[in-house]
């Protein structure tokens, strides 16, 4: 009972401090707006049974290709005469949800490995963490590219590739916080009361190691979105004609001197999203940092 009360006040306290950082709040608003857009487009697809998507998002109008921004098409038309504004909106879901899911997946796997390594120490710790070091030694983008190249290009494979490449980061973060938590008195108390290792790890250690993980995850989503865009740019991610920012950017590359809007708009989309996630992540880190408590 008292634990629950304290939890609530911890989050309330964090929120109070987060709110003071105006930039971080703007970032959060942008992310929320993107979620709303993503969900709205999914709902539209479900309600119209993809008819709207087929008739407006992937429908080509070759005779009007490369047309600049106008009243009817505020972001202009792309190299196949498709409306860039609609394609930007429909692309949000891939970047955002795939980024979030990939990170969620690696947070879960990474936390389990990190917690086990940190809690048991010794040989277990060494085996797990050396394996993570090996994964970390390979640049994450290279690792993801290799995985997609090996498994073939599909949404799920891209997700798996990115998730795997982020696992070691989270495993390290969690292990570090577990190491600081596991010698606390309340853990000793739990042990003395005969709690199982499983209960101790998941009930007491992990919830108390959450703060750095949340920050890391927010920043990780930004990295994952960039990776998805990067893979798509290389032709390994989401396949045409499905709209995705990275592939939009890639296919617009050769028209950079003919239609500025083709590259600038998806580029801005990626930039704003990443920036929003980063400022939000920074805000969260400051808000969750106990040393900055006031």
């Amino acid at each position, binding site marked *: 009972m008292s634990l629950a009360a304290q939890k609530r006040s911890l989050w309330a306290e964090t929120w109070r401090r987060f709110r003071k950082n105006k930039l971080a709040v703007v970032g959060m608003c942008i992310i929320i707006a993107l979620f709303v857009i993503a969900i709205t487009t999914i709902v539209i697809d479900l309600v119209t049974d993809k008819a709207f998507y087929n008739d407006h998002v992937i429908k*080509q109008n*070759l005779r009007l290709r490369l047309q600049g921004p106008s009243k009817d098409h505020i972001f202009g038309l792309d*190299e196949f005469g498709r409306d860039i504004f609609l394609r930007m909106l429909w692309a949000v879901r891939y970047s955002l949800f795939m980024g979030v899911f990939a990170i969620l997946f690696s947070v879960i796997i990474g936390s389990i490995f990190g917690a086990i390594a940190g809690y048991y120490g010794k040989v277990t710790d060494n085996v797990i963490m050396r394996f993570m070091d090996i994964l970390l030694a390979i640049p994450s983008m290279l690792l993801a590219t290799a995985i997609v190249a090996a498994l073939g290009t599909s949404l799920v494979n891209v997700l798996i590739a990115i998730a795997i490449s982020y696992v070691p980061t989270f495993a390290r973060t969690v292990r570090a916080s577990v190491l600081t938590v596991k010698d606390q008195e309340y853990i000793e108390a739990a042990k003395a009361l005969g709690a199982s290792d499983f209960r101790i790890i998941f009930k007491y250690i992990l919830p108390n190691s959450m703060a750095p993980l949340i920050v890391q995850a927010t920043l990780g989503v930004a990295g994952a979105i960039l990776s998805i865009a990067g893979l798509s740019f290389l032709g390994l991610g989401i*396949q045409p004609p499905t709209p995705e920012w990275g592939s939009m950017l890639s*296919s617009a*590359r050769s028209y950079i*001197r003919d239609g500025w809007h083709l590259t600038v708009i998806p580029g801005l989309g990626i930039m704003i999203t990443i920036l929003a996630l980063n400022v939000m992540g920074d805000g969260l880190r400051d808000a969750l940092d106990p040393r900055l408590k006031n």
Partner: protein
Amino acid sequence: MKKHLVFFLILIVIGSFAFAGGSSERSSSSEGGYKDTIIFAQGADVTSFDPHVGKETPAVAVTNHIYDTLVDVNQETGEIIPQIAQSWEQIDDTTYRFHIREGLKFHNGEDLTAEDVKFSLDRAIASPSISYIVDFIDTVTVDDDYTVTVTTDAPYAPALRNLAVPFAAIVPMDYVSANPDILKTAPVGSGPYKFVSWSQNDSVKLEAYDEYYAGEPKTKNLVMKVIPEAAQRTIALETGEVDIAYDLLRSDARRVSEARDLTLYEIPSLSCYYITFNMNKAPFDNKLVRQALSMAIDRQLLVDTVNGGSGEVANALVAPAVFGYYNPGDYEYNPEKAKQLLKEAGYPNGFSCTLWVNNNQERVEMCQAIQEMFREIGIDCRVEVLEFGAFISRTTAGEHDMGYFGWVTSTKDADYTYYSLEHSSQQGAAGNRSFTNDAKVDELVEIGRTSSDQDARLEAYKELAIYLKDLSNNAPIIYTTLNAGASNKVEGFEPDPIGYHKLENVQVRN
């Protein structure tokens, strides 16, 4: 101490700028108001300087200045003209005798004799990369120092044209037999330019061969620069970094033609781009389905838009400039009729399939536009982009539904294309990736291949073109153009329809 360091650093920076300026390729003018160096840019480096190995266009565009062939083809008339062979006669259906120019020397001073010709042709036949161009040859015999006789397995009408392809280059026997790999890095031929240096993935330098039989080339030095990004080649041309740039982006071509100090050269190429249907797979084994898909493609719209208005709608696998071309009538665009055909074929609701293409952006764009045209007749087609090696090996194995291919008729003779792409003996690697196995096609291809009567050949190719259009195993889409941009100061540049541009008669004004 710190001051000294700063001063030193500044010195380094200034020094490096000065050095960068000094390393520029431009050298001073030569007599007559012409530059002594032509710099041209292309998208890829030479794969191998060995003419019997490096068959890719960027390689040949350089090596064809170093090596000569027995005979050549006149660009305008299409006639066979002498090169290393001064004259020749056809003794019977399967025997040709060549008389070699006397007094020819390779760049290293070796005399070019009949022995070198025999050695070179035998070497070409033994080379897996290019043997297909010379494997019609049965034996090459040396009659005397300046006479060779070539006999073929069977009558082969395009023989002389094949011998004019740069892969049939003549190389020095003593030099090459001493070290079979030497041509890869230190090429020696008898062509208008000598090899000077190669810095991999950057540039190649050539120098005029002053003893060339047809007279010394007009410009002393030739420099090839590798600039992989196509947009970057246009920029290099605009800034004057290069004199000639090959293979510009379609969107940049307009920019070059509009620029006051630049000239765009654009000629019909010998390439045809086409969709191959894998006839070993359902539903592509059904002629109605193939015809329906072909009918769903608005070729004129593709030419006008995706291809930027350049090129022409294709109606056969060989381009109009090729010997043996016949126009069987343009392919109809009629989505309604296409749907009707699908219904007759038993697919009233369409089907799902894939279209494979290699990772070349212009090709991928074509496929995306075609994908949308297929969607309009109810076909759910996925475009899969493959790396070139995988694309070739997997389509060779017949794993594809449909593939988007390009084919250049390098010999300018229809046999080269029809035999490789349509004859049942050429399934898979050799080029027949529709896996066509049709007795009538084989018969017509063979008449075209072996008949020595040119009119009979033309008649066979005419009948073949009409038959293939109905068979629809391939759907020809577009004949592309080949372009190059050059500064207005460039004189005498004549683009080659295959991309093997020759620069020995080109000059650049100061």
